[in-house]
């Protein structure tokens, strides 16, 4: 109990400070508008009036934390799940594309990694480009990819899933190749001395020793897939998904909507990474690799 507390206390303190700064910022940034309104109506605002008004605006420049919390709660629990105003519905649209893309990308990454480890020519052909491609801002052109697909008549889940797959593919490929290569010369020689077949060597040595690396990159990959999907929902015309909520919020100046969508995305990201983390722990423990 005290251990938990000792770990939680600093985090909670920092969170409180952030929230306090947030409130201060909300009052300061929203004050200009209130002052203008007051001047127009030629009334004087007391400090307490000022604070209550800046924290309850309809379209604040910076919504206060409790406004975001209310917006988030309303979006999640306050609507029928099938409603277009339900964050759960939008999150589901985003999540399904993310998961589809993640499955495709991670699967392809793992398969290609196995090929690369077994074929030298494949390694030398693909790896340099795979590494170089990481430096290219693929995500930035994601919205454009969507538009191009749309002009070819393909809309909905698939284009977004392709972007998500593309983004989760490289971390998995690189991590898995690294993992499959971790057994050192001594362990490989030992396998050889038992005259193990290639197959046995793969299943008994390479694959188990690659798992810690695989899971680390899966966590990166699923977060990247989510970001890819959200960015894929940004182009004008998209109406579903958390990215579309962000965009429509920014068109109509609905700042509370933007922030709620942002926090919903954050929760989704944290949840996905946590799930991969749980699977990782369970798997590694069963294999006796957990520390």
């Amino acid at each position: 109990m005290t251990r938990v507390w000792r770990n939680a206390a600093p985090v909670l303190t920092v969170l409180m400070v952030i929230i306090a700064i947030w409130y201060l910022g909300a009052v300061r940034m929203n004050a200009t508008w209130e002052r203008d309104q007051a001047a127009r109506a030629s009334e004087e605002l007391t400090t307490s009036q000022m604070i209550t008004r800046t924290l309850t605006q309809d379209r604040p420049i910076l919504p206060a934390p409790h406004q975001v919390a209310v917006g988030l709660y309303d979006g999640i629990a306050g609507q029928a799940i099938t409603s277009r105003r339900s964050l759960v519905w939008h999150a589901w649209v985003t999540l399904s594309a993310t998961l589809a893309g993640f499955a495709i990308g991670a699967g392809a990454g793992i398969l290609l990694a196995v090929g690369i480890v077994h074929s030298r020519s494949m390694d030398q052909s693909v790896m340099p480009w795979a590494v170089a491609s990481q430096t290219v801002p693929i995500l930035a052109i994601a919205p454009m990819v969507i538009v191009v697909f749309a002009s070819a008549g393909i809309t909905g889940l698939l284009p977004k899933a392709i972007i998500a797959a593309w983004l989760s593919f490289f971390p998995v490929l690189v991590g898995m190749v690294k993992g499959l290569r971790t057994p050192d010369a001594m362990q490989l020689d030992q396998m050889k001395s038992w005259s193990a077949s290639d197959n046995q060597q793969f299943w008994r040595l390479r694959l188990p020793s690659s798992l810690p690396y695989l899971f680390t990159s899966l966590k990166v990959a699923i977060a990247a897939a989510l970001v890819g999907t959200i960015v894929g929902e940004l182009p004008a015309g998209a109406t579903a998904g958390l990215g579309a909520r962000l965009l429509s919020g920014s068109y109509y100046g609905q700042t509370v909507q933007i922030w709620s969508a942002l926090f919903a995305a954050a929760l989704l990201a944290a949840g996905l990474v946590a799930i991969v983390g749980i699977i990782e722990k369970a798997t590694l423990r069963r294999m006796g690799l957990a520390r």
Partner: protein
Amino acid sequence: MNALPIIGVWLGGWALNIWLARFDTRLSRMAVAVVFGATLLILWEMAVRIYAIPAVILPAPSQIAASFAANGSILWTDFVQTILRGALTGWLIGALAAMLTAIAIDRSPFLQRGLLPIGNFVAALPIVGIAPILVMWFGFDWQSKAAVVVVMVFFPILVNMVAGLKATDAMQRDLMASWAAPYAASLWKLRLPAAMPFLFNGLKITTTLALIGAIVAEFFGSPTRGMGFRISTAVGRLDLPLVWAEIVVAAIAGTLFYGLVALIEKKVTFWHPSQRK
């Protein structure tokens, strides 16, 4: 029938690479990578021509190159606006802020234990999402793009730098203690040099993030120049070769940016096992 030449080129490139890979020298490795890239380009060009794929869906490499050559000044303006003003400025400010923050909280285990979990959490979030907010706050010009980049690169660099400042081994810290070294000396002479490999790890990861942030933020509003602006308007006019030319610029800029940071890393952390030759 049409597919035959494509399959031929593919098999040819494949066979050439299998043959080349047997040598396994530095030169042959480079050749393999180049052959692979060239094969892909040729296949792309052939596929577009043979199947007469319209340029609005996928332009051929030759069309992209032509557009690249024809739109030099536009591409340059966009490059300056998005990469130099937006991405680079933001990256520099964000990196500096993250390093200073890391040093500031280095003395306080309490702050570290408070900030690090939050930093790790935020580093995994879809931060590009704050772009619409920051565009609202800082206006349409490059300042808002730089602000997005600052927020995007801050946490990954912070997390790496804090880990780096802690990455000294116990014996080296004990040595410093046995010499009664004051805090500043142990920071300058031990912790900062030891943190460099970690710092550069963060700096390298964030070069791509910086470009992404700067380009994506332009989709939420920009002046009439910039790569994100150009991409979205060119898509509207179905001028796909220009879009792809911008993508090529982004790719080259990204690779150069990364390469430059990696080069500086090599100079600064020459002593690290991963850099020794």
